[in-house]
């Protein structure tokens, strides 16, 4: 891993190849070789970006499981509230019926 180049180094190499390609007197063979080198450098650049992003993303997921478990608990509590609300509504109806009967009897 110690020999893995940095993006900065890869870009410096790409810049040097670009400068070499600017020379209009180079042969077609040399141009092909330089372009081939460009592709190799592009592959290295992509791989470094992927590795860096992957490491950053993996470090992010650390606490997600714990928060997911808490979310489930919250949803359960919210369901309990719904149940309580429904029960009170049913009590309201029962009391209503009783009061209706009592009111009618007065």
């Amino acid at each position, binding site marked *: 891993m110690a020999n893995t180049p940095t993006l*900065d180094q890869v*870009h410096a190499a790409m810049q040097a190849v670009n400068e070499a390609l600017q020379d209009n007197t180079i042969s077609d063979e040399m141009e092909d070789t330089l372009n081939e080198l460009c592709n190799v450098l592009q592959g290295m650049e992509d791989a470094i970006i992927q590795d860096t*992003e992957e490491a950053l993303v993996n470090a992010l*997921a*650390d606490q997600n499981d714990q928060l997911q478990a808490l979310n489930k608990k919250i949803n359960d509590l919210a369901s309990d509230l719904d149940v309580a609300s429904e029960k*009170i509504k049913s*009590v309201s109806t029962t009391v*209503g019926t009783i009061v*209706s009967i009592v009111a009618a009897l007065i």
Partner: protein
Amino acid sequence: MQRYKKLFCLAVLLSFTGCATLTQSQLNEVNAFGKLTNSFSAYPGTIVATCNRIHAQSEIYGANSESSPDLHVQAILQIHDFINKTNVYTPKIDLSLKIINQYAQGLVLLTSSKHNLSLDTAATKFGTNLDALITDYNKVEPKEKLPTGIGSAVAAVITLGGDMYIRRKQAEDIKQVLPIGDQIIDKVTANLLTFLGPTQPDTINTKTLSYLIYEERKSIIIHYQKYLELNRDAISLDNNKTKMDGYIIHRRFATIADDRNFLQMLQDIDSTEVLRVQCIQAVTSLRQCHAKLLKDIQQKITLKEYAKELQNYSAEVKTAYNTIKAIK
């Protein structure tokens, strides 16, 4: 009759005294936190998605300048591979904030007034029905009229009792959930801040998002330069026995559309860095906002207005939203 009504009201009220409920403004604060977090959940992922999109776009310019068809195709295949491999990162980045968002929406659900409103509806219906019944009774027995309005009074008591029960339950649930949530949010936001990196651009530490953005800016220029260097065509003149090989050099090669694309890529990568800094501020505000929320709920105070932390969080999220809109 009046005396019974008063006694009934008093009994119900007494049964609920001493309940630890949250003030309406505290419930509103929890609610506002949840709604704000909902709009923020996709922003950090946009940074990486935009960076990778620009990278692929700039590499197309590099690929287009390859000298042979084989190398040209090979370069395009590499871009395709890069897109496929990095596409998986954005949903993973967004997952952390989506989970925080789920948590925030859970808080909204817990503090929702829908439970109280449904009680209101039931009690109002009951009150109206009872009063209508008494009115009918009075028509049948006009000599012994019953007092109308008792239905509304009983309905009010039931609503009050039910409402207080629900609010006490909401307070219990919120007080149970918020401290645990706060510990987790502390860790998740810390991870997000590590992911986003320092506020100042980091051109030294090669493992940071800031460094990637900084180097991507260089990459755009390098690939476009390479494209501009595709300014010569080989030529061979054959006149009888004399053969001359040479090149035609194009002085004006790139189109205005190419230059506009190049400019747009530079502007987008600059906006990505701006968005990164704004996300740091928004995540920091999210952390402070939740800590303040917990403190407010625990202290049982009546909030005159939303906490400053909530307003800051709101402002940071809005600023980041404007930057995202500016990225093409």
